[in-house]
């Protein structure tokens, strides 16, 4: 019975972006995720904590792994779950976002997990509806649970995040993962370097206090962890390759294959937020290498999302 008095809670009612979280919030999420990671490795991977909570997953943009990861997290906490995809819904009939969400909330939903193509959609929603909002990606802005699971995976693999040198490679311009990762890693005391073609690097990115190195080999020698972002073909414009000449050229300059990995001369941890374009960002040999933690990231994603939902639900008044 005693020992429970020392518990803490999150400083925020919604998870809209890493920008709203303190380092202490993130440490609390990680410690809670440790507990859930043990739970999801039990024979019966389910706990009753959120059995009186209903969660709506609103995906206004296609997603497989994030939606499945959230849904598994919700079900393993025993929450009731409703799924809502934009295609074939009232959104295509002209309903506004607030009306759509308020209609769902009228059915007594407590929390909303939302992915939306527009930056700021989650913040906007949190100001206009009575539910706890979890941002599952808003355009090119933020993807906070991905950044949390990435930092958690680094912590698990290397034992710490503080002082770790993390390289983020690729399509920084279109990546909400990149922005959330930069913010979370810096708050946790890691050093961040970016690498990729100049056309995929936002002009003012150095104002965030990160280093930029366009020579991937140099950047790899600097880092302890390399996070190889996916080339977002769907966001490159018309023919899919407006920002660089060809996928083949991208793979030659910024792809990580076995030869390039061996040239680094040390054990750099390989990460990728998925889905992988095998042979573009990383080759199969590197993706399946012993130093790759790509599948650990996926497993940790469920534990991190359980922790976030659990800690946010704890702040819902009865």
């Amino acid at each position: 019975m005693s020992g429970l008095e020392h518990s803490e809670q999150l400083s925020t009612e919604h998870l809209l972006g890493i920008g709203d979280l303190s380092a202490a919030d993130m440490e609390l999420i990680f410690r809670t995720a440790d507990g859930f990671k043990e739970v999801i490795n039990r024979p019966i991977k389910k706990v009753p904590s959120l059995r009186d909570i209903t969660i709506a997953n609103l995906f206004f943009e296609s997603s497989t792994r994030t939606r499945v990861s959230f849904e598994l997290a919700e079900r393993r906490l025993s929450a009731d779950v409703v799924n809502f995809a934009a295609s074939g819904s009232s959104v295509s009939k002209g309903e506004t976002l607030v009306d759509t969400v308020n209609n769902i909330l009228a059915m007594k939903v407590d929390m909303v997990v939302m992915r939306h193509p527009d930056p700021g959609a989650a913040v906007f929603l949190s100001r206009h509806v009575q539910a706890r909002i979890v941002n599952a990606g808003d355009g090119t802005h933020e993807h906070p649970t991905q950044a949390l699971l990435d930092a958690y995976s680094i912590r698990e693999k290397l034992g710490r995040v503080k002082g770790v040198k993390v390289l983020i490679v690729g399509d920084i311009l279109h990546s909400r993962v990149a922005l959330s990762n930069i913010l979370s890693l810096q708050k946790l005391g890691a050093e961040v370097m970016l690498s990729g073609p100049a056309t995929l690097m936002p002009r003012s990115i150095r104002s965030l206090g990160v280093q930029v190195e366009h020579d991937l080999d140099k950047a790899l020698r600097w880092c302890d962890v390399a996070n190889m972002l996916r080339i977002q073909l769907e966001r490159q414009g018309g023919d899919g390759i407006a920002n660089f000449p060809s996928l083949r050229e991208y793979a030659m300059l910024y792809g990580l294959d076995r030869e390039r990995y061996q040239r680094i001369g040390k054990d750099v941890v390989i990460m990728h937020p998925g889905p992988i374009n095998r042979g573009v960002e990383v080759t199969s040999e590197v993706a399946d290498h012993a130093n790759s933690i790509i599948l650990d990231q996926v497993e940790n994603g469920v534990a991190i999302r359980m922790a976030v939902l659990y800690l946010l639900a704890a702040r819902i008044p009865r």
Partner: protein
Amino acid sequence: MAVQTLLTSVAFGLTVERLCHQLIEDHGDLAGVALIGLQPRGVMLARRLRSELRRIIGGEHLVYGELDITFHRDDFRHRSSPAAPSITQLDFSLEGRRVVLVDDVLYTGRSIRAGLDALLAFGRPSDVQLLVLIDRRFSRELPIQADYVGKWVDSIAGQRVTVEWREQEGADRVTLDSSAA
């Protein structure tokens, strides 16, 4: 007399030893038995029992685990902040095993209810018994009783029973604090 000592260090040691002998009386060499301490404070008693049992009978058959019940508690969102989880360590199957759940104080019975719920997520034991150091009888909110009891205490809500351990607080002791009652 706001704070009353219920068990002195000497009585504490005798009580733990008696509980060990009762376990041996019922379970022999403890083959097939799993001793499982509830986090956070039940594990202190479970660890003490484990080392005493090893001293008395060798205890090479004794299987030992620690169980966190945080996510199974029924007071989630009744508290001002969520309870922090502790470590669960159960690296054996419960199928067909005789489980002895161990906690320091049995009071309302709600922690044990959560403990049973958490335990069954690991499989189906053949039976489950409950061992506690202190039983605050007449204060149960659920129909749960212990099979092995160190000491019964009649207390009222507002009084506080505290179990102290030499590993954590420097001395083995059980006290009853009535100052808030």
